[in-house]
């Protein structure tokens, strides 16, 4: 009797738990999964001069033959185009290269900043974290346009360099890869600093004392204790930056040149200039698949860390 009540109680609790998961699950289905499936479907379609500009269209009201026609009309041709045309491959590689380089620079810049904040007096720390975020309260586009001003031929950077006598002639900054990386590093810094700070701030000071007591000089204690213990922050920060950078559109479009495109720009061109929705969708789906790999690796590492605990 008691057992029966207990098990009924348990089922009720299980339902409660399921209900709690249901809300985010619904949200993700409606606003992520369904749009994804739609894009996937478009990527398997063909362009057409029509409204919407692709074929086949699914008409459920026309019954079974229509559905059969629809399925027969789908093909992987667009993916074959992605694989055969160098334009896409170079765009992908370029995006991954710029994302990798930017993420590395972000790590090199972000780590000292996060470390400095984590070692600052406790009451100053929230203030310093705010300071990292403060520029981001202004509009993103305005900040990128400001960079155009700084980097142009008669811009602030060249003025300063010439005034300091470092260069004689104005240097071309704008429309170079350096400008893209600079803009990206500037824009993504908080997303690198915050996870790093979160993991460094938890560090137990006595661990460094123990390392010193056992004869490790400071730089070695940093390398052997601080860095490995902040690994979760490093991984989280790197992923948080790498993934959106790989798909970045605005920064390369405004600061970069027009000769070599990042995949986000290629996608934009396909979609808005060529009006080729199916190829644009294929580009997007392929990018998603490429970026899924680091996320899955991260998940795997996290699970292993949890099991270790």
């Amino acid at each position, binding site marked *: 009797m008691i057992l029966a009540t207990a098990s009924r109680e348990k089922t009720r609790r299980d339902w409660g738990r399921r209900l709690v998961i249901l809300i985010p699950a619904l949200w993700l289905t409606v606003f992520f999964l369904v749009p994804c499936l739609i894009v996937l479907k478009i990527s398997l379609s063909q362009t057409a001069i029509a409204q919407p500009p692709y074929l086949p269209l699914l008409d459920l009201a026309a019954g079974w033959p229509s559905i059969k026609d629809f399925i027969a009309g789908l093909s992987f041709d667009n993916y074959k185009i992605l694989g055969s045309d160098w334009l896409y491959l170079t765009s992908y590689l370029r995006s991954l290269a710029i994302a990798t380089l930017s993420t590395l620079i972000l790590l090199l810049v972000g780590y000292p900043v996060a470390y400095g904040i984590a070692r600052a007096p406790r009451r100053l720390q929230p203030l310093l974290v705010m300071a990292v975020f403060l520029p981001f309260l202004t509009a993103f586009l305005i900040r990128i346009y400001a960079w155009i001003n700084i980097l142009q031929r008669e811009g602030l950077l060249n003025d300063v360099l010439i005034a300091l006598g470092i260069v004689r002639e104005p240097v071309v900054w704008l429309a170079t890869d350096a400008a893209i990386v600079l803009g990206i590093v500037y824009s993504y810094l908080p997303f690198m600093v915050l996870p790093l700070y979160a993991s460094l701030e938890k560090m137990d000071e006595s661990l460094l*004392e*123990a390392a010193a*007591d*056992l004869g490790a000089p400071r730089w070695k204690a940093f390398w*052997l*204790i601080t860095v490995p213990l902040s690994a979760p922050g490093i991984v989280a920060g790197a992923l948080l930056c790498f993934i959106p950078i790989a798909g970045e559109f605005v920064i390369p479009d405004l600061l970069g040149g027009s000769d070599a495109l990042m995949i986000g720009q290629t996608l934009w061109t396909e979609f808005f200039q060529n009006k080729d929705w199916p190829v644009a969708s294929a580009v997007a789906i392929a990018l998603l698949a490429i970026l899924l790999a680091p996320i899955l690796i991260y998940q795997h590492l996290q699970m292993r860390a949890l099991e270790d605990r």
Partner: protein
Amino acid sequence: MLEDNPDDSAARPLVRFEAVSKRFGSIVAVERLSLDIFEREFFALLGPSGCGKTTLLRMLAWFEQPSQGRILLDGADISAVPPHRRPVNMMFQSYALFPHLTVEGNIAFGLKQDGMPKPEIAIRVCEMLALVKLDGFGARKPHQLSGGQRQRVALARALAKRPRVLLLDEPLSALDRKLREDTRFELMELQEKLGLTFIIVTHDQEEAMTLADRIGVMNGGQLVQVATPSEIYEQPNSRWVADFIGDVSLIEGRVVSSALGQTIIESAAGGRLIVTHPGDAAAGASVAVAVRPEKVRIEAMPSPARNENCFAGRVTEIGYLGGVSIYKVKLDNGLNMKAAVANSQRLTEPPIKAGDQVWLNFPPDAGVVLLR
């Protein structure tokens, strides 16, 4: 116990604090403190929290630098010795085990810093694991160990480099009572076996008493008394020490006369005390007589032969502790006094109950005259 005589002035101290002061801003943590600690000694720094004992230990480990004075190790100023050459290691209160390294990795950490060849490190790590009875646990991570096992790893890591002085900062405070008692004896065995100098910081007087050859009692950044555990208990040098260590009844009074090792004191509350006291106490000096509860006899009848060290009163409270019972007695002169009686027989009915009229007395050699 080691039969070294630490007070032998011919022996050279291994560790010497010379008028060491440490200030943090306006707060004085340690004030002009001098102390010698000898080879193979188990020395305890005992005091309430905030007395400066941990600061003193941390200065020896060179985590803090003295504001004034110097610290000598084997006759040499430790500020002149580079950190990795200082034969001092510390076991931390939190253990401070490296969470991302295995037990072996933790123990080997210091050896690697010294550039010891790998095969030798492996041998030393094995030795250390055996020493702390953790054979077979080498591949575990700290979070896979129990509190007691972690404590052992911390100990093994601190001992791996074979320091001459091992510093222990409240090493047992995170363990539960039973484990703490067992570990105490293991620590003592270890210290004897290795022949090292151990300096322990603790606020637990029982721990200090059982472990240490000598105790330095600290208060307000200064050493109040440095002596063996039994001296500290039986011959405290001040009211503060007597009160801090163990249970005590303090009776304030004025010296009437002091001769032939016997001091007669007139209690401020009334009554006369005779106490065996080796030193001189000038007549008229205001002193306190400290009496430990277990040295006080409690009787239901007044003893006819006595006038001194004898007080009438009424039992206010009885604390039953199993082995002993503590009787709190309100004396007729207004003072409170405690008597401890060993429960040597199994009694169903206590002979003395709360509210009973009783007479307390103690022999002259039970009391201690305290001038400070």
